[in-house]
């Protein structure tokens, strides 16, 4: 039976190629979508890991609620006392955030890999975070997760702890010196930029690409760099008893009307919702992509069945059962789909590699799940696209087929 199917596929080569191309386009989009979906999921997971730490208090309307630009936030130190008194708050930690560039190392923030180069250049940098080591130890945030070396001590100058991500990118370790540039005016001019260097005494690992590139220094040294007064800080991190989190946050909001209190639960929910929506959108796009191939196949196979009406009548006259006719049409449909799927996988991988080359650092996923998804869609397209034409062919009455053919 295969020889009949094979010869028929080659009967109208251009039509077969067009149908296979339809599948190729669909599968290529499936590959790209699955890859994007996976990298987006990975990014979201990463982000969630980052957010799953302490609850933060920042200056209102300044990236609060766990916002990104903590370096622009200024809070009065009195916030700490107020926060500590709220029922459910176990511990607090005050921090100062300063956005700096690391000399000879380009750190592209997570999620900005596909942005234009000049934008990446502008956004390239890390946070220099001034902390109180005692407070950090109590709050058990990632900054206290030292994997090698030691944590900085209170009031020390010229020493730092860096994230494992920065350690890898800068190829600097304990005992090395790291140099950063701080553009106080944030205007990008060299005139206002000042260089600071620190000896690395420890490495922390937050297990998140978003927070693993920072540099931890003492609160006093950070204050000396960005010029904050002794009563100023950038933000406060809180450790709250989980059962009392909602109540505590409500009270904090009343107590601190000029501050934003990040609600991580809400943030997590927002991330999950967004992630779900993204997933649904990717799925819809995959279904849409598969539909392109499906329509191509079904159209080709219907045309093929119609133009072979008489031949199908002959097959039936020579004793072919309905199921044999169905098998023949399905084989043809699936073979075209397999050809298209192979092309789609090839072009999809090529496209992803191309994107990876054009935008270095782009989070592109190439794994078995990608190929399994593409193959699954290919089979669905081939089988689904063949069912109706096959049924139509098998439903023919051989005599009517002779008359119509």
């Amino acid at each position, binding site marked *: 039976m295969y020889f*009949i199917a094979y010869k028929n596929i*080659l*009967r109208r080569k251009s039509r077969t190629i067009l149908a296979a191309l339809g599948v190729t386009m669909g599968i290529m989009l499936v590959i790209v979508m699955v890859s994007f979906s996976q990298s987006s999921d990975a990014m979201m997971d990463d982000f969630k890991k980052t957010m799953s730490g302490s609850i933060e208090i920042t200056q209102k309307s300044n990236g609060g609620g766990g916002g990104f630009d903590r370096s622009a936030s200024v809070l009065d130190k009195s916030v700490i006392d107020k926060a500590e008194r709220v029922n459910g708050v176990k511990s607090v930690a005050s921090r100062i955030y300063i956005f700096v560039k690391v000399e000879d190392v380009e750190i592209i923030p997570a999620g900005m890999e596909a942005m234009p180069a000049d934008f990446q250049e502008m956004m390239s940098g890390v946070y220099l975070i001034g902390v109180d080591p005692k407070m950090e130890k109590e709050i058990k945030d990632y900054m206290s997760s030292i994997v090698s070396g030691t944590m900085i001590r209170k009031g020390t100058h010229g020493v730092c702890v860096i994230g494992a991500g920065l350690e890898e990118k800068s190829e600097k370790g304990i005992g090395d010196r790291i140099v950063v540039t701080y553009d106080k005016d944030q205007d990008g001019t060299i005139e206002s930029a000042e260089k600071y260097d620190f000896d690395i005494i420890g490495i922390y690992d937050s297990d998140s690409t978003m927070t693993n590139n920072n540099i931890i220094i003492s609160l006093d040294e950070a204050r000396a760099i960005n010029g904050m007064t002794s009563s100023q800080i950038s933000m406060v991190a809180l450790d709250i008893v989980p059962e009392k989190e909602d109540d505590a946050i409500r009270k904090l909001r009343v107590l601190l009307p000029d501050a934003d209190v990040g609600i991580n639960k809400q943030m997590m929910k927002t991330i999950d919702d967004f992630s779900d929506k993204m997933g649904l959108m990717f799925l819809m796009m995959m279904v849409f992509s598969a539909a392109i191939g499906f329509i191509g196949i079904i159209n080709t196979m219907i045309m093929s069945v119609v133009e072979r009406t008489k031949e199908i009548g002959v097959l039936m006259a*020579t*004793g072919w059962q*309905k199921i044999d006719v169905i098998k023949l049409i399905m084989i043809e449909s699936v073979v075209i789909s397999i050809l298209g799927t192979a092309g789609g996988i090839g072009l999809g991988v090529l496209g992803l590699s191309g994107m990876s080359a054009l935008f270095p650092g782009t989070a592109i996923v190439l794994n078995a799940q990608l190929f399994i998804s593409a193959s699954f869609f290919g089979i669905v397209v081939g089988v689904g696209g063949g069912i109706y034409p096959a049924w139509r062919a098998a439903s023919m009455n051989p005599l009517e087929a002779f008359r119509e053919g």
Partner: protein
Amino acid sequence: MTNEMIKVDNLTKIYNMGDTEVIGAKDINLQVKKGEFMSIMGPSGSGKSTVLHLLGGLDRPTSGKIYIDDVDISELSYSGLCNVRRDKIGFVFQSFNLIPTLNVIENVFVPLAPKGISDEKREYAKELIDLVGLGGRIHHTPNKLSGGEQQRVAIARAFINNPDIILADEPTGNLDTKNGKEVMQLMRDMNIEEGVTLVIVTHDQNVGNETDRTIHLRDGEILKDIINKNSSNQSRSPEPPVTLGDDTSDESAVTY
């Protein structure tokens, strides 16, 4: 077990064309013996093809019975009819109906394709192709063959499953006289060599004369059932069901 390959009892086929009923076959009774070479003749619309299609299980009767090798095919399921067509019957059509994308041997393989093609059948297909005189053109596609050659391929295809019966609908209708004669001779040869029962529909009297027996139809009814004494295979001509008529005639006829 009887000597009859085909037996038809009170066969009637009525087509409903809107409000009108068209009689394709009316109360036909017929027996065809094993190895008999019979032709069905009649004017257009007389029901020749209808009877042939009913005999081949391509259509179902409105009433009456059709027995193929003692099996009542009028009662069979669709699948059962497919099996009868595959195992018992070979069809030859006026317009050859070869599959244009397949070469000679592949076209001959078509009836075998669903069940797979054994080495034995491959050899047999080659023998058949040799027998129909196309041994040197085994890999040619139909568009590279003449009409006569295409019909030979169709005949080889009809024989591939070793059927008991070959049903041919105007097998020489699209051929010139020379090719028509050759095809008839080939069918006669295969009738003798394979012992197969042959029923052909034709409107050509010369073709009809080449067969052992001719039934004439008009308006779906058998008008005459004639034994052709000058057919090219007198030795295999079966005894006529009833022999009537002029002794000096070269035909023995039953007139209904």
